[in-house]
């Protein structure tokens, strides 16, 4: 596609439910990132996929969070047993190469609200 696409754009869920967020990166981009942006705060790194390498999961805040990526295409971020503190905008980005030196293109984000 022309850009990074995320779905859904908005999600309201009840506390304790599981949610799945989807990211379609730009075709041909080998690197894919997930970030979390809480209201009034910066971008918090969650997880980074680079080609066939093991993902860097160092930013995942708890074992309720997990992410998968199929090859160099779609990625899903799953949050199990959601809590109110999980409410945030979840941003996905992709870039062309393994090196962090190439520009990362961002999606519009998924706004998650846990009630």
């Amino acid at each position, binding site marked *: 596609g022309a850009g990074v696409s995320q779905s859904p754009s908005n999600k309201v869920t009840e506390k304790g439910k599981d949610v799945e967020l989807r990211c379609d990166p730009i075709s041909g981009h080998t690197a894919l*990132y997930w*970030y979390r942006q809480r209201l009034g*705060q*910066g*971008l918090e*790194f969650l997880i*980074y996929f680079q080609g066939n390498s093991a993902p*860097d999961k160092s930013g995942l805040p708890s074992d309720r969070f997990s992410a998968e990526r199929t090859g160099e295409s779609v990625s899903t971020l799953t949050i199990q047993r959601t809590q109110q503190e999980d409410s945030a905008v979840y*941003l996905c*980005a992709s870039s062309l190469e*393994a*090196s*962090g*030196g190439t*520009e*990362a293109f*961002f*999606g*519009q*984000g998924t706004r998650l609200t846990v009630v």
Partner: protein
Amino acid sequence: AQSVSQHNHHVILSEAASLELGCNYSYGGTVNLFWYVQYPGQHLQLLLKYFSGDPLVKGIKGFEAEFIKSKFSFNLRKPSVQWSDTAEYFCAVSLLTDKLIFGTGTRLQVFP
């Protein structure tokens, strides 16, 4: 672990004022440096980047940034801001083959 600090959390300026937003990072190796901007209601987009070469880099919309290696800094500047520059600005750093780490952002408000 690498980290990025943006000291100005909220900056308020009048149009035509000069702007400088601070960014410092905590890694001593070779880094790539970026400034991203998020206009109200829009997604993040790249403003400018530094990989190597001239430490003074020019970006879109009249922005520039200077990499000062000795100070671990990459401050963003614009000589004369416009109302349309109202946005949130994020500094980001990556090692050559690693993830992008962002600062906490600076919210800029420009009043006519």
